[in-house]
């Protein structure tokens, strides 16, 4: 009885404090402190510091700044521009070609980097103006960019995946492998949707008559834009799956690959490295300070019996395990409307995972479902990262309302794909299993 009160108190105050607009890290910390003093005793505040010491020396969390740095260097190295140029040459005469090409580039970027921001910002600058100038239906163009940009969460490497794997105490490499097939299926679904929609209604993505097809030789020449990305993808994923490096070390290999790419495109400079380091520290400090706050929040929640009361509740209701799973996924989607993904993982995984295990679901598979809800969170208002990134590059006359409208169909595709993976777990788990069979 006391513990369900804890639950209620902690989550209502979380929502109330959050609406004040204060930093999530400090809101979580403050509620943790108040609850600790009221329900546990002031001496227990030491727990926050002890958790922070652990966070400070986590080899796995160190992958976060490394992947952010890599994305930042890539973004400044003009290889995304070259990719886009090649894609335009190849898909100009296809129905909805630029939108399809955007998804393809986003998929390639997703395989190179672990953060969402790079893809959305780059496509917002490159693809959006060219689609709009062709007369593409703005919501379609905006939706494709937002949805494509989030593919990086599921397709490895991915910072969100790393945080999930650490929190759930499963191998980062296994969790990465689990994301590959679902990520490609999701990308394929987006492409299928765009193709069907523009085939049914070609006016959504007009092909101007004066577009001339480039000679094949020239088109093939543009494919050399793929060389550097392939080099980076191989550097990161290759070094993980051939056993050269741990996922964290692979991120450092990726930084090296990105720096070499920037050298090749003649963009490497002191200013560029300095700017990339600034972005990296901003993003890293943001995530890690939330981690400190969230760990404080979770410790007091567990210690005062909140977690047990949830588990007890779930065991008490005589619902089928699928209903319980459905409720958990709905909670994740709901929280995703308001909360940052890293925060959601740190808050929910320690509470949900024991339930998942008790219900005999596979944590790896649940992780993939989680990543899809994370992708939903990234494109849904009011708190969707991709919306923030796009806001800055929207041209005159295009309002945020059109972005909201554009993401709706993609949101529903994500829902359908989520249900598909929930029903067919084998699609998710075969690749990690197959990869661990290799070499025996």
């Amino acid at each position, binding site marked *: 009885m006391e513990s369900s009160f804890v639950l209620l108190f902690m989550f209502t105050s979380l929502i109330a404090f959050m609406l004040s607009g204060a930093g999530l890290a400090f809101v979580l910390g403050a509620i943790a402190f108040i609850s600790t003093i009221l329900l546990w005793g002031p*001496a*227990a505040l*030491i727990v926050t510091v002890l958790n922070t010491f652990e966070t400070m020396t986590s080899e796995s969390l160190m992958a976060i700044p490394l992947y952010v740095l890599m994305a930042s260097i890539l973004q400044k190295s003009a290889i995304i521009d070259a990719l886009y140029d090649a894609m335009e040459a190849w898909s100009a005469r296809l129905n909805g070609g630029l939108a399809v090409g955007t998804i393809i580039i986003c998929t390639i970027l997703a395989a190179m980097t672990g953060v969402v921001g790079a893809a959305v910002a780059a496509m917002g600058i490159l693809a959006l103006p060219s689609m709009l100038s062709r007369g593409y239906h703005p919501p379609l163009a905006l939706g494709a960019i937002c949805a494509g940009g989030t593919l990086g969460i599921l397709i490895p490497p991915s910072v969100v995946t790393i945080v999930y794997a650490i929190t759930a105490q499963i191998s980062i490499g296994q969790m990465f492998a689990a994301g590959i097939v679902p990520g490609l299926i999701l990308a394929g679904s987006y492409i299928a949707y765009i193709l069907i929609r523009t085939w049914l209604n070609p006016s959504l993505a007009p092909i101007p008559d004066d577009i001339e097809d480039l000679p094949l030789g020239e088109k093939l020449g543009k494919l050399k834009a793929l060389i550097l990305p392939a080099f980076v993808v191989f550097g990161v994923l290759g070094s993980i*799956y051939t056993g050269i490096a741990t996922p964290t070390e692979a991120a450092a290999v990726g930084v090296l690959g990105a720096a070499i790419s920037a050298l090749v495109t003649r963009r490497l400079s002191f200013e560029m490295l300095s700017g990339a380091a600034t972005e990296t520290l901003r993003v890293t400090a943001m995530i890690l300070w939330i981690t400190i706050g969230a760990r404080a929040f979770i410790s007091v929640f567990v*210690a005062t019996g909140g977690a047990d009361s949830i588990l007890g509740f779930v065991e008490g209701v005589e619902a089928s395990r699928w209903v319980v799973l459905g409720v958990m996924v709905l909670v994740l989607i709901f929280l995703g409307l308001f909360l940052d993904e890293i925060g959601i993982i740190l808050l929910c995984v320690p509470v949900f995972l024991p339930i998942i295990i008790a219900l005999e679901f596979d944590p790896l598979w649940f992780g993939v479902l989680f990543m899809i809800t994370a992708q939903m969170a990234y494109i849904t208002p009011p708190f969707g990262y991709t919306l923030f990134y796009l806001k800055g590059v929207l041209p005159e006359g295009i309002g945020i309302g059109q972005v909201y409208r554009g993401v709706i169909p993609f949101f529903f595709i994500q829902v359908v794909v989520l249900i598909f993976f929930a029903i067919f777990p084998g699609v998710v788990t075969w690749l990690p299993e197959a990869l661990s069979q290799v070499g025996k």
Partner: protein
Amino acid sequence: SGTAARAQGVTKWRMQALWGGGTTPMMYEEKFCARVAELTGGSLEITPFAGGQIVPSAQAFDAVRGGAFEMMKTYDGYTAGKIPAHGFSSTVPFGFPEADQYEAWFYERGGLDMVRESYAPAGLTYVAPTVYGEEPIHSRVPVRTIADFDGLKGRFVGLASAVMADFGVSVSPLPTSEVYSALDKGLIDVADRGDIKANYEEGLHEVAKYLILPGVHQPTTATSYVANTRAFETLDDQQKAALAVAAREISGSLRQDILVANGEYLKKFQDAGVEIIDLDPEDIAQARAKAVESWKKAATDELSTRMMESQVALMQELRLL
């Protein structure tokens, strides 16, 4: 402690354990708490928390010290960097080959008192150890003699990392969750992780075709029940005795549970095509003599030296050295 409410004669404690929720050793921590409640007629209620649920296991020392919880089940190796004596009260690489011998050192050769001495200045009271047997070494390559370790890449932690390094292993400190994939991809050749059953459940038979016994890096293990001294002093004699009795019961029953499970799970390893290599006791005995030099390096203060010397003396009596 401020939180140990003694309402209607009931003292309520929180205890953080080492283990993950749902694992066998965690079940024994639940049994420990239930037994204490039984022995005290319900006057001491301890709620166990799984490792890492409140603070990371390695930080539990300071959490109990600070009074966040009244008690912990810890592994002294975590604090050996602070208190050198704890290298000798947790596990000694190439040390006692039988759990009973190690437990005898605690109860018959003053080990208990020396460990209490190591905890007392920190405001902590060492209650009792839980002593059990070996953890295996998993390998991608056959290791048939101690000399075969020379030149391999390995994952070991604590004192074992220093000692195995002295035997020629290049040691990487990987997190437990990465052992499977590091072995799988050949990042490392040999690794320690957990006990035989836990490692089978993790699937190490899929990635390492050799299992080496005894696990010389960790032939015997002691984990510890430790209480906050201020909280401990509020207990009456019956409650204190209950803690000691329950702890000693758990030590025996967990050890026997592991003993039986080891046999059962070694069979499963074999069925999965893993070759079990038994190292020659003679070879290990010679290595033990060499390991004494590594122990001396780790015994950096008066108390740890005294503990090390008394263990060496007992090993000599038992004709292990």
